[in-house]
């Protein structure tokens, strides 16, 4: 009963999980990879922001969005607009008919920077816009939908439609957005050449720090009452509503949070890759993000990172040899994961690896006997922990671990 009082923000297992990820991303990968490969990993990691947002909004809140590219893209475009203005100084654009404006504007016979581009002359305003614009967008969408109690498949379809609409808009308004090519040829950030190896290295670490910041926010949410309300809402929305909660507000909050996290990833993408284009906004990238999240495990915030890394690594290696087959492979991967491991890699870890980890991992409070787990595991077709293990551990553990384990599974066999 004592233990229940301290609702742990970071239980031992989670702390170790965070530490291992930090070790991999911040120490091991920079040591073994050259800058080119590390930059590639950095790019993959920008997607994991989106996947992380999906863990909160889809895994926990039950709100499937098929349009997260919208927020990734908007964040990325806000960053790109700043960098493009900086790259378009009158000296380097003196061959244009109107020097001092972005090249694609010049090609489209536009002679002055439009008013809504003006704030992006300032880095501060641009950084605010990176998060604010997508979040505001998410706020408008979610208020319009959730206050009217539109949810489930309808919501997913609407987000997908919005992602498609934004893509079409960006492509159509070539003179203001760079069209289908996107905003390219970005060079410096306040005079600092972002294309240099040194900059790529620094940006990789900045990206890692931001990612861990977002992971900590997500960890706070899932260990907070708000996280439990999200789970409750996902399973029994009516019950939550008739327990005195305005359910729509919680959905709006988590959807906006997911958008804000995605937007940071988008901005870091632009910085590390050096351009932003509509191909990261539309339906296909949005669905890919859902796949990263599903592969990692939609209830696991660390799984979101591993899922993004693994799928993208597979994509890169695979599409180098068979580019035309990649989409099919991806589709098969998604269906395979959803059918065989509804909770992704994280559930495999919980079932096959965690029980074998040494005692220091579990701390003294978790007396799980691997033998028992092995015996039971093949019998249950769902990927829950065997009931015996769960009920045994409940007595000695704080309640923190029980719901986490239980979240990993769907149906209990009792």
């Amino acid at each position, binding site marked *: 009963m004592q233990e229940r009082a301290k609702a742990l923000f970071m239980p031992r297992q989670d702390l170790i999980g965070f530490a291992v990820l930090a070790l991999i991303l911040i120490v091991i990968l920079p040591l073994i990879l050259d800058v080119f490969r590390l930059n590639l990993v950095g790019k993959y990691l920008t997607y994991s922001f989106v996947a992380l947002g999906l863990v909160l909004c889809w895994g926990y809140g039950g709100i499937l969005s098929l349009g997260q590219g919208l927020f990734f893209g908007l964040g990325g475009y806000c960053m790109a607009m700043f960098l493009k203005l900086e790259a378009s100084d009158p000296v380097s654009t003196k061959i244009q008919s109107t020097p001092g404006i972005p090249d694609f504007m010049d090609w489209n016979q536009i002679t002055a920077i439009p008013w809504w581009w003006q704030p992006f002359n300032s880095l501060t305003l641009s950084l605010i816009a990176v998060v604010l614009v997508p979040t505001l967008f998410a706020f408008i969408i979610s208020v319009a939908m959730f206050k009217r109690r539109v949810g489930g498949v309808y919501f997913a379809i609407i987000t997908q439609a919005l992602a498609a609409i934004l893509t079409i808009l960006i492509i159509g308004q070539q003179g203001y957005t760079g069209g289908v090519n996107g905003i390219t040829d970005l060079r410096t950030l306040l005079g600092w050449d972002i294309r240099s190896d040194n900059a790529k290295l620094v940006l990789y670490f900045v990206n890692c720090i931001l990612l861990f910041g977002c992971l900590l926010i997500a960890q706070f949410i899932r260990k907070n009452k708000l996280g439990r309300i999200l789970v409750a809402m996902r399973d029994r929305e009516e019950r939550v509503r*008739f327990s005195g*909660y305005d359910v729509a507000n919680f959905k709006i909050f988590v959807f906006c949070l997911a958008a804000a996290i995605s937007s940071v990833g988008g901005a870091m993408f632009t910085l590390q890759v050096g351009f932003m284009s509509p191909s990261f906004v539309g339906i296909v990238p949005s669905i890919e993000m859902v796949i990263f999240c599903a592969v990692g495990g939609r209830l696991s915030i660390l799984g979101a990172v591993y899922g993004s890394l693994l799928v993208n690594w597979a994509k890169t290696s695979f599409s180098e040899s068979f580019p035309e087959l990649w989409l099919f492979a991806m589709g098969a991967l998604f269906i395979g994961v959803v059918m065989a491991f509804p909770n992704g890699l994280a559930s495999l870890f919980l079932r096959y690896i965690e029980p074998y980890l040494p005692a220091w991992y579990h701390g003294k409070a978790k007396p799980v006997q691997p033998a028992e787990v092995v015996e039971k595991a093949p019998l249950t077709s769902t990927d829950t922990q065997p009931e015996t293990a769960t009920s045994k551990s409940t007595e000695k553990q704080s309640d923190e671990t029980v719901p986490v384990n239980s979240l990993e599974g769907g149906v*209990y066999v009792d």
Partner: protein
Amino acid sequence: MSIKANDFVLEVEGLTVSFDGFKAVNDLSFYVNEGEIRVIIGPNGAGKTTVLDLICGRTQATTGSIKFRGKELTRMKEHEIVHTGVGRKFQNPSIYDDLTVFENLEISYPRGRSVFGALAFKRDKEVIREVEATAETIFLKDDLDKQAGLLSHGQKQWLEIGMLLIQKPDLLMLDEPVAGMSVAERKKTADLLNRITEGRSVLVVEHDMQFVEDIAHRVTVMHQGKVLSEGSMTRVKNDPKVIEVYLGH
């Protein structure tokens, strides 16, 4: 609190709801006293659940008025109705399977109900004490750390009742609380309801006649959306109209 004869907790007057022309509840009026256990009985499809839906705001009334302690409920949002002190249990046990019994009760505890309230919510001594006290009342003290999905059917029903109790509602509405319970569990539930009526009124929909006899102060019999008969259990049981449409078969 003084209890006057006309000091009703709940006043339902001329309540009608029409689903595409079909009047599931038709010009219904009834009044519930302070501290009273009122049971609504009636054949399947009589409109009993719909009445509870109307009171708690799940369904919008076509016409009529529902006053709770003088406040008109028909225009309020669901969560606002809960905040005025109306709690409702659903016909099928509706609990959060993935959370523990403790967490189920904690979420129902009436604090931190806004987004930022929830973010700032602390599991302090008061919350733990309330949760433990409620768990004791609903016979689940030893199962606090159990995942709610693993409870037996009867225990789930109790848990949902507990989730309402912890909100300390003035009006508790229960839709078939003993459905699927064993005889022993029914008896315990009847005791439970008789214990918790202090300072609150209870509106129960139930089919189990023995259970109704055990708990009801007054009974309202519904038929085709209207009140067929009302009064004490003995009176209602001997009403020829009731025998004909409901108890007779």
